[in-house]
């Protein structure tokens, strides 16, 4: 094998686009664009690398021709409308579902901490928080205490999982993911059911932990309007990757505007982390594509 350190997740041949390096135009009206990751070959250093992913269910293409790389220490945010295939993509990357086309490669030392979209506790298994955290591996009483403190859930240690609220449970699942000392943290809509302040705090926490521990992050965002500023790259998904880039660039991208509407593009705000401990939000207004020029900007400020 060419790269002995690669575990081949799926042996199917990667789907080749029609001869050129360009992704064909999609039915949602995106213009043809360069392949999101530039080339059809696998990136040698990425934690996870996927090429030409296609997933078909019940005669519908949930994903087609998706290329994605996540590198060490990189925060990649995945946004897209409901039903765009975000969760499907995450599940394929994690190996929970097989792609019908394409291939996922995971680096040999990949260690994933996963926070699923929904964590339903089955009341039928008796289990304390402590035990649940231990199950993920790499426990150690001191580390467990430190991480629980980090997610502000130390008081739950001896409680049964079934006694926790939704928000507490979410923090516990995050703690379990962190305790595994992952080099890739995967969060599928981690802020569902969390209020605005909670969302900001969570993004702060993830950004801080990334700086501290140096893991890569794949974050599925529930909200088109609010993307963590620490994102190194935003991937805008609607069954295929419509556009990708740094948060500000994505908001300006014509494909983004076309798919999510001018309203969404105008409201697009990037949350910038402040170290002054107040939880204020700077909703940075962004110039949008020319069609929307005459409209006033909604959101946190007036336009320059």
């Amino acid at each position, binding site marked *: 094998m060419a790269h002995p350190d690669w575990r081949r997740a799926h042996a199917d041949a990667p789907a080749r686009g029609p001869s050129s390096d360009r992704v064909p135009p999609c039915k949602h009206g995106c213009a043809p664009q360069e392949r999101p990751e530039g080339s059809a070959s696998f990136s040698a250093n990425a934690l996870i690398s996927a090429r030409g992913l296609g997933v078909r269910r019940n005669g519908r293409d949930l994903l087609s021709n998706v290329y994605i790389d996540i590198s060490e220490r990189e925060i990649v945010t995945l946004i897209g409308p409901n039903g765009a295939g975000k969760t499907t993509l995450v599940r394929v990357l994690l190996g929970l579902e097989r792609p019908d086309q394409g291939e996922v490669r995971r680096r040999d030392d990949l260690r994933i901490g996963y926070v699923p979209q929904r964590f339903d506790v089955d009341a*039928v298994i*008796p289990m304390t928080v402590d035990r649940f955290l231990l199950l993920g591996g790499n426990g150690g009483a001191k580390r467990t205490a430190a991480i629980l403190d980090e997610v502000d859930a130390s008081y739950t240690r001896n409680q049964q999982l079934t006694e926790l609220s939704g928000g507490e449970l979410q923090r516990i699942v995050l703690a379990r993911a962190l305790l595994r000392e992952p080099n890739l943290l995967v969060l599928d809509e981690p802020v569902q059911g969390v209020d605005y302040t909670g969302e900001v705090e969570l993004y702060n926490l993830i950004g801080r932990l990334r700086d501290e521990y140096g893991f890569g992050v794949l974050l599925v965002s529930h909200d088109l309007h609010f993307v963590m500023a620490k994102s190194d790259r935003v991937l805008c998904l609607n069954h295929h990757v419509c556009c990708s880039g740094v948060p500000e660039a994505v908001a300006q991208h014509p494909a983004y505007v076309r798919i999510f509407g001018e309203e969404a593009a105008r409201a697009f705000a990037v949350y910038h982390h402040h170290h002054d401990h107040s939880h204020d939000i700077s909703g940075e207004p962004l110039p949008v594509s020319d069609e929307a020029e005459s409209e006033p900007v909604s959101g946190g400020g007036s336009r320059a």
Partner: protein
Amino acid sequence: MLEPFLVRALIAGLGLAIIAAPLGCFVVWQRMAYFGETVAQAGLIGVALGLALQMSLTLGVMLIAVVVAFLLIGLSRQKVVALDSILGLLHHAALATGVIATAMISGPPVDLMGFLFGDVFAITSEDLAWIFGGGAIVLVVVAWLWQPLLRLAVHQDLAAAEGVDRELVRSVFITLLAVAIAVAMKIVGILLVMAFLVVPAVAARPLARSPERMVVLTALIAAASVVAGLWLSSILDWPGGPSIVVVMSVAAGLALTSAAYYQR
């Protein structure tokens, strides 16, 4: 002094109580009761197979149970009809097929009641060897796979994303379940074997705060039910296996009722 047949019945029942406890808990945790029921009822086909090939009936049941279990796993991959509905249909089909298959076997008439409800007082030394041999294997493998089994039971996707081999662990588990069903057949019969696994686990749930504690409590409840059931059976002349299951069910009923009461 106890009669030898009663001693053998007690030893077999207590042995099964210990073997069944961890499996029963996992069946409850993973909501596989219907799955097990279908596999168990297909066991009668295995009885016919054993009779036809003149081999050990326990082995015949074991083989068929394993085959059926893997077929069901295959069926569960389709997403058109829920597995529950398929199982509800198939466990009747499996039983009917088994009854026909045993009826077709030439030779002396088959004691259908014995296979369906068990004949705990007819346990032989060979049966005991199956129970303790098979049981030892089951317990060793469960102990070895305890962590991954538990992780999958708590949250399948989470465990799989963290690197637990879902397919492998599940395959091993259903094989163990098939073995347990086969060795339990003589004691409680194929119709009651899942009750022997599931009911004590249900009774133990409200009393447990950790998974291991629940397994230990399940074993204790099952063992006490075996002793009480066999005692009732010998003084009232009730059938052995069903008596054990009735005692277990009363225990589960009491546990759940008190849980409902204290939850308020």
